[in-house]
């Protein structure tokens, strides 16, 4: 599964994108954020306050309980500050 990161989530993790193989049991955005947090300090730092990190599945905003099955691209990023 392709995962992309933006803004300070990207900076903390140290990469803009990666492709990961998910273990069974990672079913929602919250599960994925939790699993990523366990991959190292940089991930733990990025997801330190999981409520602040927003997510999108295939370019649509989703909530933490959204199921990720079938997703092609999942994005994690801070609250938006465009406009």
């Amino acid at each position: 599964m392709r995962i992309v990161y933006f803004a300070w989530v990207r900076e903390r993790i140290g990469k803009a994108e990666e492709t990961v193989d998910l273990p069974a049991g990672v079913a929602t955005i919250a599960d994925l954020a939790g699993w990523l947090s366990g991959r190292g300090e940089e991930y733990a730092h990025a997801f330190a306050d999981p409520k602040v990190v927003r997510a999108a599945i295939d370019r649509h905003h989703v909530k933490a309980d959204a199921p990720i099955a079938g997703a092609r691209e999942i994005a994690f990023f801070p609250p938006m500050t465009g406009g």
Partner: protein
Amino acid sequence: MASTIRLQSEDFDVAAETAALTRGRVDIGAVVTFTGICRASEAGHDVAAMTLEHYPGMAEEEIGRHVAEAERRWPLLGVVVIHRHGRLVPGDNIMMVAVAAAHRGAAFAAAEFLMDYLKTQAPFWKKEERRDGSAWVAAKSADDAAAERWAKALEG
């Protein structure tokens, strides 16, 4: 309805975009434009420059969804949304919205709706160059509240 959505690093020309909306038409009675400009000072600190990061692909799609929603809510005759990315200095244009309609009520409401949603939902992030280093801009609760009012207006 004619709609234009563009993300670009180059500057834009509000006048040319607006002229393209209205050229040759006699059904448009009202055009509202909003231009967002980079300021030298934000929330009490100096800003030397800012860099706008965006999520390519999703940014266009998300703006497109908001434009479609605005068109569903109000009788619009044309919409332009242009958002820049990359490095900008104070005085530079950041983004613009132009809305054309027969009457001013729809044009004002749709322009404000689009701005409120772009601020909180379009995947853009600003990083400011400040005197003490660079920092990502924090989302404003006022912007969330501004976007919320449209949801309330739908329910109410």
